[in-house]
């Protein structure tokens, strides 16, 4: 088992290193550079751009830049964001907690809601409830994320009488510093509700549809027939017997969705003015912020590897038969 994890970690390290190298080269091969972005400003001349390139070492050969980057990275230095004029570590430190908080709430609640919807559908298989819930799932599955985000933002944030929910941001920027502990906690919760509701509604259909299919596959199993013959209630049958065995494919989905914990959801962040990683990554691509983009991709690929290892661990926990195969 230990050898398996060491092997997976080693593979993961190679994947991250390869991705980092490819991104490092590709982003520099794209037309323009971080200093091409000052459009419409005649005061930014080519001579000034040259001075900036020199200051950030971008006038050196790409191999030299790469060696220097790798050396710095092993010393914990991820570089200096050209766009935001501060160390990349600080940029990640500010944005990552916001993304982790929002995405984990969105993913967990989407997962739980998806499971509950799937159970409700399976218990009413072929009936009206199954069809209605299936229709709702399909609807939310088909709605583009930016549109749903805007709908919730305007519908529940602006049109709802009383304006219960704040219109974006992480906190009330006017009053937050004057609040006491509980008021701050409440302020943060209210700011989280609409963006996390959006993500929940975006994620749950995915889990619901897969879980429903997995449960339907599990129900005809012999052990289910045995349990039913023993007089186990329909609810317990599904929740205690069928669910655990049908969770495996959905857990794989969670592993796939895990990198979103780092990368965030760009449109949701944009609409709700949520200062997370998604927006930062998009800005770094548009602004050719090489250090921030490279660091973001390294972290994102590390999350992909971690998600895949995590999915394996949960698989092993859920299905003891797999432990021997490793």
């Amino acid at each position, binding site marked *: 088992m230990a050898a398996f994890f060491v092997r997976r970690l080693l593979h993961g390290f190679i994947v991250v290193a390869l991705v980092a190298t490819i991104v490092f080269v590709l982003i520099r091969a794209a037309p323009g550079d971080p200093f*091409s972005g000052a459009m419409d400003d005649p005061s930014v*001349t080519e001579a000034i751009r040259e001075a900036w390139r020199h200051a950030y070492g971008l006038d050196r050969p790409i191999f030299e830049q790469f060696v220097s980057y790798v050396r710095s990275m092993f010393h914990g230095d991820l570089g200096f964001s050209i766009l935001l004029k501060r160390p990349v570590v600080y940029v990640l430190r500010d944005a990552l907690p916001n993304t982790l908080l929002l995405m984990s709430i969105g993913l967990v609640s989407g997962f739980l809601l998806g499971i509950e919807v799937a159970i409700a559908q399976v218990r009413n298989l072929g009936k009206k409830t199954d069809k209605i819930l299936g229709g709702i799932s399909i609807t939310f599955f088909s709605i583009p994320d930016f549109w749903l985000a805007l709908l919730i933002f305007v519908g529940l944030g602006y049109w709802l009488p009383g304006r219960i929910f704040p219109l974006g941001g992480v906190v009330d920027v006017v*009053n937050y510093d*004057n609040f006491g502990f509980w008021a701050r906690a409440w302020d943060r919760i209210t700011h989280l509700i609409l963006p996390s509701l959006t993500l929940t509604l975006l994620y749950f259909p995915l889990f619901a549809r897969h879980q429903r299919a997995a449960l339907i596959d599990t129900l005809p199993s012999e052990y289910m027939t045995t349990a039913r013959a023993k007089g186990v209630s329909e609810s317990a049958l599904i929740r205690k017997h069928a669910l655990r065995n049908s969770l495996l494919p959905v857990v794989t989905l969670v592993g796939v969705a895990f990198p979103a914990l780092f990368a965030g959801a760009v449109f949701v962040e944009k609409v709700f*003015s949520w200062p997370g990683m998604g927006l930062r990554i998009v800005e770094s691509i548009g602004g050719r912020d090489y250090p921030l983009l490279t660091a973001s991709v390294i972290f994102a690929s590390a999350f992909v590897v971690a998600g895949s290892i995590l999915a394996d661990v949960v698989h092993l926990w859920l299905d003891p038969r797999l432990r021997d195969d490793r």
Partner: protein
Amino acid sequence: MSVVRLVALILALGLAACTGEKNSVATSATGGTLVISVGGDPESLFPPLASTTTGQMVGDLVYDRLAEIGDSLNTVGDAGFQPRLAKSWDWSADSLSIAFHVDPRARWHDNKAVTAGDVALTYRIYSDSTNGSPFGTALANIDSVTATDSLTATIWFHAKSPMQFYDAVNTMLILPEHLLANVSASALRENAIARNPIGTGRYRFVQWNAGQSIELAADTANYRGRPRLDRVIMTIAPDFSAAVTRLLGGEADLIEQVPAVSIDAIAKDTAVRLLLANGLDYNFVQLNLNDPKNANRPHRLFGDRELRRALTMVLDRRGIVRNAYDSLASVAVGPTVRAYPTTDTTLRQIPFARDAAMRILDSLGWKDTNGDGVRDRNGMPLEFDLLVPSVSKARNTMAAVIQEQLRKAGVKVNVDKLDIPAFVDRENKRNFDAVMGGWHVEPSPGGIRQTWASAGAQTGGTNYGSYRNGTFDAEVDSALASTTLAGRRKFFTAAYQTIIDDAPAIWLAEPKRVMAVHKRINTVGVRPDAWWANVADWSIPADRRIARDRSIRAR
């Protein structure tokens, strides 16, 4: 935790929140909070490196110049300039130096006195090319800055120039020597002051929460007087429509550029009003006069002046601008803006005359010989690529209309949308047929030398289309050398007429600045170059204040 307990906890938190705000009631003529919605974080709050609007706004509110340009935007001599850190100034007899007398009451926000040494250090930082300040080039005419005594800073110039005063005072926001004297050039961008500025302005910096907000508070003991608003908060809303919703929802007080699609909604709202002002932007289709593959050869199409003029005549510029901006932009009169006192808006334009243009194209030999709908000559189609920055909705709309109008005249346009770095890269390399370009200009029209005269046509310059005309250059030089407004206007009118007649670009739109402001705020002195310049004099009458106006930061 059961659902009931969870709901109880949330309700408890809500109740606690209702009593958590520590308000302080402002009853005097001063007070209130202005919440400005901005699109993103500034890259830096260090004035020599702050090139985004938000960075410049914070810089202008937290720091001071020696003197401030007047509302007329006059840049000749010192007429109209208002004293700021310098309470007065004396010109030398030969005009090669100006002695600025620092206001002895002026203090930094950390309570240190302002000295002439601050001015000298500021010049060194701005002009040091290793710092890469985009504003350094404006100081090229300054030879040195010396501290004659603790409160007198003398700026020495290489040569007399009508704009030497403007160049000297408008470029530099004065920086604190006591905090920056020992900081090396390479360390400046990472210095603490780049994120926690300490200035002399009427607002002092409080905090910057990355991606969320920037907060400024009134400097109540400021030498120029306490500002009327207690706080100015910039809240970051990257999405335009979300920003408008936050304004209409009462979470923000001001949007500095309202998208055209939101004008109706804002106009109907009873709490918000629109504020229209002339802007300092104009845009155009810039034609590359040189062959993109060989700069020593004229462009296969645009090297021909008559063809350029004919293409301009095909286009209904008024219709194009209306399509993209509705009524929120004027048709550009040339490479200038109406806000300049030197701009003559009655300049003779190339008329919109499609039939006449078609006849000119025919006479130039551009005819559709093979019936494919595209004119050609000697086997070469009348076809070109038009680069458009993908982020600009207005320019994309205009490009589509231009494409259609030219198609009807037998001219094929291939619209190529690029992201900004790729777009600017192609401009810099002169690797284009035509671009949907635009300039945001300074209060001084002097930048035209770089953007349209021969000086900017060199590699590294910003005259991307490589337009060269000796007459135009001479007229611009004469205008910039003129020491009277009337003289400047006369020569600039001649220069603009020359370039309009040569048609190296098709002048499109001069967008207006359309701001939306909450009605409770009294705005005064909205300048075209910096609407925020007089925010310290904006106010909110006591009877119109809302909850956030009474909430001041706990200290």
